[in-house]
């Protein structure tokens, strides 16, 4: 199948050699930089049983290269704890870090009553001044915690360290411990200084470790429901979690906790009572699932609610796990009732989008998951990569033992976890697990992005601004997906750009209704006529740009 990416009736699409593209990009770098980037820009060989190539990921960004990545603090405070509504989050540091993470992600929350605690619209910072840097900021931090307690009387307070805090040596953990004893509420701190890891990924890890250590397991109340699960790695951007909750609710599946979209402190504290952990974003949370399995005996599976097909598959997989025909029937019923609306829009949009190309460079799972939605409307992902994922997110979990542990990863504490003497309760016995496996049911399964993509696609880790520009110039994709920082540079070049972090104020895109929203959005974007007006009538000249022929 040969598809031209940009239909150009009177010119034959010229075939682009990916090796040439790769070489051209690398040639413009100084030797040392080129050597490093060469390992992070690879041509996929997946499909047809071929092994995926190795890619370097989760290594430091080269200075002076404009990266998409944020910092460890951003991952910890912004991404993981940001969407929880009833913990008072105090940023310990100068004012900027806190300000920039003040509700900037579009994670949504829905308190059950207006009186319910919701601190999400607040941004607390110790706003360190020169004297705090010189003489230490512990005193101020202590006073800030006390003040937050007196004003809000929250269930919990958490403290986040920014770069200068680590340098001046403030002991945030001791402050937290003392204040916890003193005030009698849960108070915990994160050493998530921005410089700690190579990207926000380190911050996710620090945050999740903290929640696991300080909160999970504190409340043994069981939520009602026969089939109870946790939804891990779902952040409720644009209301995704609401749509997922709607679907699960229709199926009769209970969500005990979500890490961390639309979440609460109580949800975290009784997460250990669920019977299955389901993982959306493998990157940001797989270790929590592992630890919960060891300590509490909860198995985990990888799921995906991005894409109508993926949503159906996920529901069936959950039903399969519970091995209850009643649930299985219910799930089929729901899928059958939801799909007609989806299919109607899908087919209509597909007619206009079929064969067009997409590029996705974002996140630690989104660049993979969203390919599914594009596939459903006949669009092809010709190039993709993550912003902060690790090798296993590209190549699959089977390469985990081969990942080299460098100084930056050693920096992030690996918790040593043992079965909980009272709360460990294996949800399936070894025989059941073995039988399920024999029947083809896979636990802890993530094969990564590459094996899901066709061969001859370009995979780029931590793409830089410059590489983005070159890709666009060469391939002229119908749409490019990244985050707001990339949006306007890409659109200036006449390529529609969809934000997959904050959804351009759109969403939800998860689940069945989300899929419909996404199809419509992409249809609108790739079929708009505005780009043809970039050149004024008096400037029009024959378009000269290479086409791209793509072979499956």
């Amino acid at each position, binding site marked *: 199948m040969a598809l031209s990416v940009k239909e150009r009736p009177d010119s034959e699409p010229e075939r682009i050699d990916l090796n040439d593209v790769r070489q051209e990009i690398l040639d*413009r770098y*100084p030797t040392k930089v080129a050597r490093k980037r060469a390992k992070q820009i690879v041509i996929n060989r997946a499909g047809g049983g071929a092994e995926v190539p190795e890619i370097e990921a989760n290594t*430091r*960004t*080269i*200075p*002076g290269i404009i*990266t998409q*990545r*944020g*910092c460890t*603090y951003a991952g910890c405070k912004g991404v993981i704890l940001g969407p929880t509504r009833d913990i008072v989050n*105090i940023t310990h*540091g*100068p*004012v*900027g*870090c*806190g*300000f*920039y*993470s*003040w509700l*900037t992600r579009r994670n949504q929350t829905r308190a059950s009553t207006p009186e319910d605690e919701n601190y999400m*619209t*607040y*941004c*607390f*910072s*110790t*706003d*360190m*001044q*020169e004297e705090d*840097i010189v003489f230490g900021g512990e005193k*101020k931090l202590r006073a*800030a915690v*006390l*003040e937050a307690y007196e004003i809000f009387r929250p269930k919990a307070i958490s403290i986040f360290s920014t*770069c*200068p805090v*680590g*340098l*001046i040596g403030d002991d945030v953990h001791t402050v937290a411990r003392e204040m916890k004893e003193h005030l009698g509420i849960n108070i915990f701190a994160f050493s998530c*200084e*921005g*410089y*700690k890891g190579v990207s926000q990924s380190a911050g996710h890890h620090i945050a999740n470790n903290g929640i696991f250590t300080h909160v999970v397991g504190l409340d043994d109340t069981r939520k009602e429901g026969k089939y109870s699960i946790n939804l891990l790695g779902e952040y409720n951007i644009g209301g995704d979690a609401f749509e997922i909750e709607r679907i699960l609710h229709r199926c009769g599946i209970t969500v005990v906790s979500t890490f961390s979209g639309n979440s609460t402190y109580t949800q975290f504290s009784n997460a250990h009572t669920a019977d299955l952990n389901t993982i959306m974003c493998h990157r940001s949370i797989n270790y929590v699932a592992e630890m919960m399995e060891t300590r509490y005996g909860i198995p985990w599976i990888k799921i995906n609610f991005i894409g109508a097909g993926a949503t159906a598959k996920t529901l069936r997989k959950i039903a399969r796990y519970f091995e209850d025909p009643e649930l299985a029937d219910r799930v089929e019923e729901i899928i059958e009732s939801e799909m007609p609306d989806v299919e109607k829009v899908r087919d209509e949009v597909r007619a206009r989008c079929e064969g067009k190309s997409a590029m996705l460079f974002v996140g630690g799972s989104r660049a993979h998951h969203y390919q599914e939605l594009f596939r459903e409307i006949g669009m092809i992902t010709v190039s993709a990569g993550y912003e902060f994922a690790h090798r296993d997110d590209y190549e699959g979990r089977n390469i985990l033992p081969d990942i080299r542990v460098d100084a*930056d990863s050693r920096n992030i504490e690996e918790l040593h976890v043992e079965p909980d003497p009272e709360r460990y309760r294996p949800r399936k016995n070894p025989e059941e697990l073995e039988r399920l496996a024999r029947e083809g049911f896979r636990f802890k399964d993530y094969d990564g992005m590459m094996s899901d993509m066709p061969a001859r696609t370009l995979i780029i880790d931590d793409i830089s*601004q410059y590489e983005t*520009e070159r890709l666009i110039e060469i391939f002229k994709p119908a749409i490019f997906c990244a985050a*707001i*920082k990339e*949006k*306007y*540079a890409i659109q*200036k*070049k*006449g390529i529609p750009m969809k934000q997959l972090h904050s959804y351009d104020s759109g969403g939800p895109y998860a689940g069945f209704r989300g899929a419909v929203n996404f199809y419509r959005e992409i249809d609108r974007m790739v079929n708009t006529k505005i780009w043809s007006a970039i*050149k004024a009538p008096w400037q029009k000249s024959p378009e000269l740009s290479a086409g791209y022929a793509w072979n499956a």
Partner: protein
Amino acid sequence: MKSSRDSYVSTTNACKLCKPMGACLAFRGIEGAVPFLHGSQGCATYMRRYIISHFREPMDIASSSLGEKHAVYGGEANLILGLKNVLSKFSPRLIGVATTCLTETIGDDVPMILRKFHRESRIEHAGPDLPLLVSVSTPSYSGTHMEGFHAAIKAVTDQVCIALPGSAAQDRINLLPGFLSPADIRYLKEILVDFGIHAVVLPDISETLDGPALEDYEKIPSGGTPIQDIRSMGKACGTIQFGRTLGYEDTAGSRLHERFNVPLHALGMPVGLRETDRFFSLLEDISGLPTPRKHALERGRLIDAFVDAHKYLFGKRAVIYGEEDLVVGLTSFLAETGIRPVICASGGRSGRFREAVEQVTRDILAESPMVCDGVDFHEIAGEAEKLAPDLLVGHSKGYHLSSRWKIPLVRVGFPIHDRFGGQRTLHVGYRGTQSLLDGIVNAFIGSKQEDSPVGYGYM
């Protein structure tokens, strides 16, 4: 005057941004310049994100991406490598290096490192293409984004302007407008052209942060103050500097005076009638020409509109917040319309805020507004609640107060991330004042219409 020191420990919903962000914005207004942050990459990413969501334009900020190791041993090697990569990818004419809290705390000597880099690269390249390197120290633990902005402008004039032979050019001035919108800058340039005055406007973000859609993307957007012009700022016959809280000492304008004897005209931000009149009078003096008819007409229409608007605005109580100089300008304007500014608030703490507000309100307000500096939104809310305000004027961060109190918020300044066209908001001059006035009146009419059970369609 109210100050945050008097009350809370935590800053809750800050009304200020951090220092290097202001510096990056200022550097962005120089032709061929790339802002560069020496620190961990997170700061650069965060600031880009904020600036981009307001302007809806690309904004590159390079970073030396320090890690833990560098935090301990210093960031020199990373800074140099970063500069090299910026050179090869952008071919900039100037790199503006601002420090962050991290590198300030470590104590890296950036000017020294830059000198060394310059020396070594000169040997390597031996060409004229080496960009200018400007450094500015911007620790956020002292000062806000506005201090960072002005510090960067001062650093640029200090490090780029040179003494040139010959006498001052009589038709040339320097304009240091402060942090205004691209639309404001475009309009100011238009005014100057209309007066026949050649001006070096520093910084000039009119194109770099509000550019056209292009077939061929430019790595560094065109526009910005030409470096050649900056070099020769010492030759101007005067410097106009906006901002009453800036003071006369230790600003870019005062330094130009000290070094090159360029007279300094310090004005308030020209928002509202009287502050704009002062600006136009000065331009008349400098150019020796009367205000061109086009602008005189705009002034006339503005007065006419003030009269028409009076019935909607008189006695309304406004809370104004944001950067100190913008708040002073807005307060001056609102007081002229019959609105009663009840609180003027800022996260900044220049020490001159109260005095500036008094200067512009003394003649027309019976009662001075409450002036709060160094405050956050929690404190603003605490004070405002007692005063039953009818209107908020400021940036997007006041939205939660406006929704809580069910009063309109007219969005001005930075950041505006919940409305469209922040980069095109006009604030200054007769035209800007007119557009603010229309916006405010319509905000009142709109909310009255919405709240009315009668359903008036004729307000």
